[in-house]
């Protein structure tokens, strides 16, 4: 499914946080390309800058310098309302803590991106019910998040990330709150429903057990990408044929 059309291009991206007493450089000149149809995993120790990088890629954090283009758009150059619109239309989010609105049921949670994009609530909820079918939760559309298991909540979050057909999905530790088996099921689902020829996925994870789902893995350390490698076939439950080599 992967082609070489770049979905995300980061060139020399630098981001520094000012904590008052000191400055912390979270990203120290990141160069990264994610291609359309690709599932890229960002891995590395805590505090290495993974979350900062996907925040920049997702357009919810501005870098201090460098270039970040997502589907050809230089996010830093977009005005705030343009950036919001771009995010609303082109980016889907899956969070570590699911971040479902606890007072909305599953279908209503899934419908949020459509409502943000201007669709009427009733129509959006109807469409959401169909997407919930896709992730195997058709019968739980009316359930509140508190009535769902962790795995089911993450499936609702995946449905929410997919419903508006975004071109880029960013996932932050999507399996870290789940047990191994549930985590594998969630990743299988994500790979099955989210990866296609027109979309790219960037997943931040610590969970080595899911590395095999990636097309490529970018290893980060201390605000830099130290290595990008193809995923190993033995570790890749979703692939049958894959070479493994360092590319940087």
């Amino acid at each position: 499914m992967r082609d070489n059309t770049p979905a995300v291009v980061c060139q020399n991206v630098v981001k520094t946080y000012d904590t008052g007493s000191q400055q912390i450089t979270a990203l120290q000149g990141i160069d990264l390309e994610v291609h359309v149809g690709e599932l890229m995993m960002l891995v590395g120790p805590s505090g290495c800058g993974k979350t900062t990088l996907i925040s920049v890629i997702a357009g919810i954090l501005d870098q201090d310098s460098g270039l970040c283009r997502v589907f050809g758009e230089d996010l830093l150059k977009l005005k705030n309302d343009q950036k919001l619109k771009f995010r609303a239309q082109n980016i889907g989010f899956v969070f570590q803590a699911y971040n479902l609105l606890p007072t909305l049921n599953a279908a209503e949670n899934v419908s949020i991106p459509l409502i943000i994009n201007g669709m009427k609530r009733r129509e959006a909820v109807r469409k959401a019910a169909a997407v919930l079918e896709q992730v195997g939760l058709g019968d739980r559309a009316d359930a509140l998040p508190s009535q769902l298991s962790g795995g089911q909540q993450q499936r609702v979050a995946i449905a929410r990330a997919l419903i508006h057909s975004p071109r880029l999905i960013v996932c932050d530790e999507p399996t870290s709150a789940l047990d191994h088996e549930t985590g594998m099921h969630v990743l299988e689902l994500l790979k099955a429903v989210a990866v296609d020829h027109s979309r790219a996925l960037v997943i931040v994870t610590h969970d080595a057990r899911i590395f095999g789902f990636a097309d490529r893995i970018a290893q980060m350390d201390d605000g830099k990408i130290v290595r990008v490698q193809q995923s190993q076939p033995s570790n890749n439950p979703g692939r049958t044929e894959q070479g493994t080599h360092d590319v940087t």
Partner: protein
Amino acid sequence: MNYIALTMLMGDRGKYLGIVMGLTFASLIMTQQPAIFLGLMARSYSFVSDVGLPDIWVMDPKVQFIDDVKPMQDTELYRVRGVAGVGWAVPLYKGLIKARLYDGTFQTCNLIGLDDATLIGGPPAMLSGKLEDLRRSDGVLVDVEGAKTKLAKVPQIKDGKPVPLTIGDTLELNDRRAIVVGIAKTTRTFQSQPVIYTTYNRALLYAPKERKLLSFVLVKAKAGQNIAELTHRIEETTGLAAYTQEEFKALTYNYFLKNTGIPINFGISVTLGFIVGAAIAGQTFYNFTLENLRQFGVLKAMGTSNWVLLRMILLQAVLVGSIGYGMGVGLTALFGYAMRDTILAFKFPWQLLVFSGMGVSMICVFAALLSIRKVIMLEPAVVFKG
């Protein structure tokens, strides 16, 4: 997004009720205490309201309020009658007198002497007897509250209830007999003393001897006469003070405002109520927003603009504000209704609704502004923090 805002608000019933109750409390305090205050202050001029017919009250220039009677010479009545534009002018006596009761005790009463010919200035309603019965020998009218309580006869049996005065009962006013010929309904006065009505000339007999006894001259303007001009003319011609009914009410009201601790005491209550209500409601609403900050962050990350989030918060604030305001005002109205025939003063004009509405709006706007600021400053990247 409005649906999401409302669901966020009402989803947590406990917090939702907490915010609504805080605003209800604030609204209740902001209406109930001022309503009692206004009711109390309205009593200060209730006698002026009861004497509804005259356009103008004429009195000694030193009079500061309705009970601050500074008697004038009887001849002032004729001078007032001589002013151009005066339709009619009648005397009114108002003073305090001690009534000797059946059991030999004394009770201070307000004695009102009405013009013998016209009986202008009489009570607003008669419960028994007729106003004209005042023309009977030694006749007096007694207000119903006084008749039932302070002027009531001692019980016939031990530990029995006092027996209200009725028509035919007698009182002793300054060593003179007074026969009750009617029971009247009057608006409660500030001092809550019994009110006794009689004719002007009989009142002068009851009243302690003084050189001057005319308390007020009540004036009706001729048809088409400009009241303000006539008031001015009476003052210029007679050297007395002349006020329209509303001016005299305001004079009395302002005297009590300036010279008693009532406004300060009630002001403190209302201010404290406002502050406590604002603190409870504002803090609860702000906490509600803080607890939902991550959810606002999620919406922001997914592309919701600050303007839409602002609208969501305002909608939440308007909703809880409206419900809290409605409940608070409703409770105040219920309180007033329940207390309608008691000694408690209560006045609930529309201006008070506006005042409390503005107060609750201020609380909501304040709480919403705090919350909005927090949400606008919110970095959507917060959603990636586990």
